């Protein structure tokens, strides 16, 4: 089974802090994704990457950046956390072939105070 592991289950950070969310997958998937999930809004794509050092903006990239230095690891960075970034963050990975399902981690619940 594909395993997508997010390093933290819960995080509490202060406004203005730099925050790193880490994600590792063990199935040699080319594609990796970061979503946030909010009540009433569903899952929204922040950034994705289809190869090492490659990144593409999703629907809501503002306030975020990403890093993919190794194939198995995809990091989401909040340069200066704000309270409106309090959310559940979900990492996912998939094969590069068209129409491959995403496999998700169990999420990181981030609270910014």
């Amino acid at each position: 089974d594909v395993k997508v592991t997010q390093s933290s289950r819960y995080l509490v950070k202060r406004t203005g802090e730099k925050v790193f969310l880490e994600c590792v997958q063990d199935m040699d998937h080319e594609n990796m994704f970061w979503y946030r999930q909010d009540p009433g809004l569903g899952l929204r794509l922040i950034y994705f990457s289809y190869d090492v050092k490659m990144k593409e903006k999703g629907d809501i990239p503002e306030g975020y950046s990403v890093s993919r230095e190794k194939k198995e690891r995809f990091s989401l960075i909040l340069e200066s956390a704000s309270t409106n970034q309090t959310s559940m963050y979900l990492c996912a990975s998939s094969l590069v072939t068209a129409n491959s399902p995403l496999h998700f981690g169990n999420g990181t619940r981030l609270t910014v105070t």
Partner: protein
Amino acid sequence: GESVGLHLPTLSVQEGDNSIINCAYSNSASDYFIWYKQESGKGPQFIIDIRSNMDKRQGQRVTVLLNKTVKHLSLQIAATQPGDSAVYFCAETRPKGYSTLTFGKGTMLLVSP
């Protein structure tokens, strides 16, 4: 996560009933669809997928039906069990330069023993 179910439509069924969860999609160019299940505190879990050249696909106790004429997708769960209680999302591939999945808001399924 714990708050995923807030603001969602809810389907309540008795154990042993068949459940039907519906999803409308908006983009007639979408060519791949997935159903995910999300239990409380976990990330979305892949259930079944279907490509646009099919109108029905069956898995273990689940069937997905695709009606491209009215842009409608449904998930049928046979002999629903309490362990099926979760939020169910449909997702569609929307070509956006590089195809990515776009998720519906979800439906909460509650199964009573």
